[in-house]
């Protein structure tokens, strides 16, 4: 039996709201991408009948809209949690406004992407590059919500979609809004591919339990990394 003995600590990283957000978000994105793609390129699954007997395409659109509302409020909740959650979920992780964040990003590129050095990355939550990419995805979430509700506004009398009626004139017409909405769908698909691959990669290399951390919330982290982190965090104070 092969085993290794290194001092590890269990660290509670992802609180329940963060985990719930993650899985709701994942399901919404899955549903939105499938239904969204179908809306753009419907399958010829029924034919030769009367419209009276079918409603499958209406149902696809209905699922898309329900998922969109859920996605939107889930996203809003995550923004709120960025101001009230623990240190790993706070907003300042995601926006690279410090030198140290950019330095870590460069390190991650060297260690994990290009693999030219092998110094382990010390971060306990997301590493700086991952955080920055999540920040970009948040911006894409925002644009996707704006364009989606912008298109929805014209056929709705509800208060919320009506708030987005200004989006279509801003883009210069529904055609442009639809095009942007469609192109950004692909960013979700590509992101999901890479995201899942990288989770596999990190678990394979680091064995900190990154996959299960999104289920239970706990990660295994080397003792010295935790010590260093606590020291850093105290130095920084509660900024």
């Amino acid at each position, binding site marked *: 039996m*092969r085993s*290794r003995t290194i001092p590890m600590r269990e660290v509670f990283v992802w609180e329940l709201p963060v985990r719930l957000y993650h899985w709701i978000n994942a399901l919404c994105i899955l549903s939105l991408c499938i239904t969204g793609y179908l809306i*753009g*390129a*419907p*399958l*010829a*699954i*029924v*034919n*030769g*009948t*009367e*419209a*009276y*007997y*079918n*409603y*499958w*395409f*209406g149902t*696809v*659109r209905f699922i898309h809209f329900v998922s969109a509302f859920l996605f939107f409020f889930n996203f809003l909740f995550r923004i709120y949690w960025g101001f009230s959650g623990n240190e790993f979920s706070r907003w300042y992780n995601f926006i690279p406004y410090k030198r140290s964040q950019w330095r870590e990003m460069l390190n991650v590129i060297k260690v994990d*992407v290009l*693999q030219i*050095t*092998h*110094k*382990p990355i010390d971060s306990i939550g997301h590493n700086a590059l991952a955080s920055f990419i999540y920040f970009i995805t948040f911006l894409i979430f925002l644009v996707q919500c704006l364009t989606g509700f912008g298109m929805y506004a*014209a*056929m709705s009398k509800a208060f919320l979609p009506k708030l987005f*009626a*200004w989006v*279509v*004139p801003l883009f*210069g*017409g*529904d*055609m*442009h*809004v*639809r*095009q942007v909405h*469609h*192109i950004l*769908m*692909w960013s979700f*698909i*590509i992101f999901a*591919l*890479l995201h899942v*691959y990288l989770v596999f*990669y990190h678990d*394979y*290399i*680091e064995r900190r339990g990154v996959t299960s951390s999104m289920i239970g919330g706990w990660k295994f982290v080397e003792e010295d990394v935790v010590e260093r982190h606590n020291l850093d965090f105290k130095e920084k104070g509660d900024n």
Partner: protein
Amino acid sequence: MENNQPSFYEEVRGKGISRKEFLKFCTAMAAMLGLETSGIGQIVKALETKPRLPVIWFHFQECTCCSESFIRASHPLVASIILDKISLDYQETLMAASGVQAEEAYKTVMAKYPGQYIVMVEGSIPTENEAYCCIGGRSAYQILNEAVANAKAVVAWGNCASAGCVQAASPNPTGAKPVHKVISGKPVINVQGCPPIADVMAGVVVHLLTFDRIPQLDGMGRPKSFYSRRVHDTCYRRANFDAGLFVESFDDEGAKRGYCLFKMGCKGPVTYNSCGIIKWNDGISYPIQSGHPCIGCAEAGFWDNGPFYQHLPGVKGFGIETTADKIGVGLGVTAAVGMAGHAIMTNVRKHREITNTPEPASETQTNKE
């Protein structure tokens, strides 16, 4: 507006149109404008009493299809609302005067009714070089800005005047711009479409005449009464869309059965117009009813969002037939290949981490930096 001109009602009665016809017209207009029942009375009163509306109608870079659409309006009163009621003081296509007299006609209006006349424009205005469109030795830009200075409001007929239409399509050699981009300080009503529906044009004029103010406009400057709903949302084939019944090619069974033209590139879902309700040629038909997808002629930049028979527009820089989906699949494949490569590289270069073999002393040191 002091004027001895007969009212619209007097004019049409003089032409042998009965009061019943007149009232029917007013009712139809009220319905189209989305007015409540009392609105009919307001329109009747306005057309019976108000003197004519002074109008200058310019033609710049355009094909005159807006005028053509209008004078082909099936309802005789629709045509006469423009031709008689607002009795165009200056309309290059239709007026008898030419040359100096024509120029005088609109200058007289500008001098006689400052702040009261309406400027109606067909066509876009070149800005790359103003000389591309000149009338009587002066550029469209000069003429328009001079006329608009004292106008009450501006009506931009059709896609050219509202959004530039084909002249403004890439690469836009003349630097064609719509009216609202070359003037300022006056309300512009964009009556979209290539051409706009005649009844819509009449509706806008009746609104101006009756209420003495511009109609409520949407975010793109189009009258809400006619452009607040998508062609798609008012389409008689909509049931087929919701049912997932689509025409797959122009000669298939679905086309014969009148299925939805969504997959044939119909732009109805992204186009705001009244084609599905008012229709064309006395309500006989409209493109989709005739089996052809909507090309989105009431939307800004519709020429550049082609091809017409493709659901998604081509992506610029990738060729006209390349859609976002093709690029997306390409990126997805690239990502998959990249990931496979990275996975192989990981197994080679991260061998120590994977198998937990201790690192050589030299490397350990560098790691402690």
